[in-house]
């Protein structure tokens, strides 16, 4: 993999980054609510209004305001939160690690478990084990994330169930307290992703098992373990990687949004949730813009990984 190839892949991401940032600019800055009067006292004078509008950049032409927003994203100088007055970049820097610590175990476990179940179902395709796993995953897909969270909370965190874990909160200072607070959200995340993951991985593996080269290996005495874990798995790495890379930004943001607002965990999701409910524009536009950019980066990395994984993807 040459440096120019990496550079070219990154170049392909630019139109996407521009699109993502443009949409968030359009929705939240340009069409967003006019904040002039929120910042003014009663009965403002025309001069005061003009001053505030100037400070907010409302008098600038459209493209200049967009360029300004881009500059904010690039320099990570994202302004101050409307509600707390703290700088947005320091809020994000403080909360992002918490969100990652919160969703990472569930994300990893959900994918590993889905992969294993998918492998098993694909290997025993058409047999009772396959049918059992696939029926269970349809049931899993039919339970709403919210119902899972509330249900697990009742079962594990209240006197009506086992009452083993805290109802809400995040006072993490060592491994024990981490496990204490992270278990229920992790279970919820695993539960909600497992059905979808299992179905996806089974479909991928079942396709691979049908390939001619797998039949060749069977004809040469390869064991099921060798077939599945060496050949089927390596051949399906591209769709697997793609799914994982694609879902990272979504699980981190969407998963933490729901989990954190429900369990009161001070991560990026809770910050976003509060920004949604209070209309905190600087926070919202930073989160939307940055995740879009992150996603495009993930896509690019994904493309680069392809050529590492599969010799057929041309290496220029």
């Amino acid at each position: 993999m040459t440096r120019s190839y990496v550079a070219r892949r990154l170049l392909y991401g630019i139109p996407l980054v521009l699109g993502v940032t443009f949409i968030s600019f359009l929705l939240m800055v340009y069409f967003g609510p006019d904040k002039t009067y929120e910042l003014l006292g009663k009965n403002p004078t025309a001069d005061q209004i003009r001053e505030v509008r100037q400070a907010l950049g409302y008098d600038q032409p459209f493209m200049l305001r967009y360029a300004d927003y881009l500059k904010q994203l690039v320099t990570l100088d994202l302004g101050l939160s409307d509600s707390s007055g703290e700088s947005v970049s320091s809020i994000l820097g403080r909360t992002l690690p918490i969100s990652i610590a919160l969703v990472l175990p569930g994300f990893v476990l959900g994918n590993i478990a889905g992969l294993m179940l998918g492998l098993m179902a694909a290997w025993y395709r058409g047999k009772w084990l396959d049918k059992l796993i696939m029926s269970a995953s349809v049931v899993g897909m039919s339970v709403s994330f919210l119902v899972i969270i509330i249900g697990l909370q009742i079962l594990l965190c209240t006197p009506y169930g086992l009452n083993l874990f805290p109802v809400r909160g995040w006072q993490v200072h060592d491994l024990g307290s981490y496990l204490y607070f992270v278990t229920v959200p992790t279970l919820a995340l695993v539960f909600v992703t497992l059905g979808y993951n299992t179905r996806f991985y089974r479909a991928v593996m079942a396709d691979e098992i049908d390939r001619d080269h797998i039949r060749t290996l069977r004809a040469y005495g390869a064991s099921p373990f060798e077939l599945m874990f060496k050949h089927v798995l390596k051949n399906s790495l591209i769709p697997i990687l793609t799914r994982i890379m694609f879902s990272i930004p979504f699980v981190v943001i969407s998963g933490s949004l729901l989990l954190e607002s429900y369990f009161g965990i001070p991560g990026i999701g809770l910050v976003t949730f509060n920004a949604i409910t209070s209309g905190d524009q600087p926070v919202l536009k930073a989160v939307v813009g940055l995740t879009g950019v992150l996603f495009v980066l993930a896509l690019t990395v994904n493309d680069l990984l392809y050529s590492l994984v599969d010799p057929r993807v041309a290496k220029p």
Partner: protein
Amino acid sequence: MMNDTWQRLKSDRYGMGGLMVVAAFAFIAICVWSGLLGQGWSEVSGNRWESASASHWFGTNLLGQDIFQRTLFGTATAFEVGLIVTLCSTILGALLGALSGWYSNGWLDEVILWIKGVLDSIPFYLFAAAIAYALQGNTWAMHVAMIVTFWTTTARIIRGEVIRIKQREYIEAAQAIGLPDLLIIFRHVLPNTFHILLVQASIVFVAAINTEVILSFLGLGIQDGVSWGLMLAESSQEVLAGHFGNFIAAGSFLFILLMGFNLLADSLQDAVDTRRVIQ
């Protein structure tokens, strides 16, 4: 083609089970719309948090409203959201997907692919939040957010299918005799993707109902009226105090409907997948 699909669907008992569940819920929704059911959803008909009884099947909520009535009304809400989102996003996806596939590798295709790429790059709930923010609490913000993001998958599938159909002889013949592109697309190409649209619509319906629940919980969803998502949001406070009425009612209705739809979508997919049948 559709006849075959129906025959195959009929022989799949899981699919038929799913269809019946969906039909039953649709019936409830129609009854609510025509004023026969669930009309007492907002009136205070008892004390707060009454437990289940003959007059209140699932008890009452914080305000003393009947949870069962609210659940029935929530069915109509779910169908309303599901139908509007599914219809609009499927039409949008079919049109843009067909154009994109027909003019594949042209500038129009590039533009549509770019828009799809951009929309797919923004995490959905954030996008919904941004739209809600831009529309300042407009009732339709949730619908718009879903329609604007859900069409992309449909368009991607239709694009691939149209590229395949374009190479068939009768399409080449139609082009050779000089029929205008749009006429060919609408008369000869899109009708051949109907079965794919049907499957995709059933999947979008599930996603729309599921998403409404989450958005309503986040305060970005249903503004007036009641939905299962709002009931679950309500229940999140109540369950700690041991009041499970909202949770059980909304949770189980939601689960049964989603399960029915998932089974139906699965067996629809099997039924129209002619490639598998030929093999």
